[in-house]
């Protein structure tokens, strides 16, 4: 296998190197890629969509259809991980409880699941005494991370960022909570049902905005027609349309990141994680 691998890799590499000969020099201003389609985006994006960040304008408007499927790919991954890993009817396995007052640890093998009580807290099998510093710092950090994520989504028009990056950061804040405390804490605040619903809702918002455009009489994802309901001119309608789909992307990406992490780290049981 190793020699076969080396042969295939060298063959592919040689082919690619051979083709490099015909490329325009790196960074050339007169290369086809810089002269054919892209100048229009740079010149017109500002006046056609009122979005200074051309990448956002192209991503969510000129090639918004691609981005819709990009979000769909993420959604597929979320659903895929869920359907592959999630186990619903698990036998109650070993559980560990800790008596908060005396710090005595109980190990319960199988049998009935004890009721929740305020004297005992459930702990992971690989539990180590909580580190106060990590717990506190993470708890303080989480709201700021979420605030930053919202800023990234909302400010995607003017600076790098947008729905995707902001969504990942939002998801990461919940994942941080799951890592620093435990997975049950995170799931208590953000239940599996909510998460899965948000996953579908976010990308539904994206497609829905496109469909509303059809209902208002323009083409799919042609945000200009939104001016009729948003009471703004057509250029600002494009800008607002982009903002709307970015929010949808953000919601889906956040929910999918949390869902994939929860399913991976708990091998589908959604009780004990990293």
């Amino acid at each position: 296998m190793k020699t076969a691998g080396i042969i295939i890799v060298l063959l592919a590499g040689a082919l690619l190197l051979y083709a490099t000969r015909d490329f325009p020099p790196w960074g050339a201003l007169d290369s086809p890629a810089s002269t054919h389609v892209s100048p229009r985006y740079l010149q017109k994006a500002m006046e056609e969509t009122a979005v200074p960040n051309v990448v956002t304008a192209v991503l969510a408007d000129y090639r918004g259809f691609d981005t819709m499927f990009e979000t769909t790919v993420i959604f597929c991954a979320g659903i895929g991980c869920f359907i592959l890993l999630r186990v619903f009817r698990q036998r109650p396995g070993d559980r560990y409880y800790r008596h908060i007052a005396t710090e005595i640890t109980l190990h319960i093998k199988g049998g009935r699941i004890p009721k929740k009580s305020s004297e005992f807290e459930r702990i992971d099998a690989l539990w180590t005494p909580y580190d106060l510093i990590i717990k506190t710092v993470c708890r303080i950090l989480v709201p700021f991370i979420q605030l930053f994520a919202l800023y990234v989504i909302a400010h995607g028009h003017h600076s790098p960022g947008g729905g995707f990056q902001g969504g990942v950061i939002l998801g990461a804040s919940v994942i941080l909570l799951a890592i620093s405390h435990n997975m049950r804490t995170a799931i208590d605040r953000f239940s599996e049902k909510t998460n899965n619903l948000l996953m579908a809702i976010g990308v539904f918002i994206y497609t829905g905005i496109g469909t509303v455009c059809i209902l208002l009489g323009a083409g799919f994802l042609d945000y200009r027609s939104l001016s009729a309901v948003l009471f703004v001119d057509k250029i600002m309608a494009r800008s607002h349309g982009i903002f709307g789909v970015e929010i949808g992307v953000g919601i889906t990406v956040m929910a999918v990141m949390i869902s994939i992490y929860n399913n991976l780290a708990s091998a589908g049981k959604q009780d004990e994680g990293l």
Partner: protein
Amino acid sequence: MSELIPLIVAKYNYWLYIILMMIGLYAMIAKNNLVKKLVGMNIFQTSIILFYVSIGCKKGGTIPIIHHGIHAGRHVVDPAHYVNPLPHVLMLTAIVVSVSTLGVALALAVKIYNRYKTLEEDEILARLRAK
């Protein structure tokens, strides 16, 4: 040789992306561990992203965010001042695709490990043959 050196200097980005691609592809084909293959896959994908981003570069170009002072109509934007935004857009999509593939692949790896208790491909195949 004398003509090769300017060729390399002018296009070293393209050359180095090929090296990265070869590393990734080699890991995917020759490695035995399933997660190692996955890492190779990600290196392979990032090398392609590097290639695309290199296409978008312009000498002297800055980030593709139009300066705030310029408003519609009053000032004509010179495309040579900004790098090509289209490859960036495409590569945002490609990064998303790669992380999605990674998620599904890791889920599969966990599922395989639960069944066979190993991640080495030859050990799994040996176990299958023994059955």
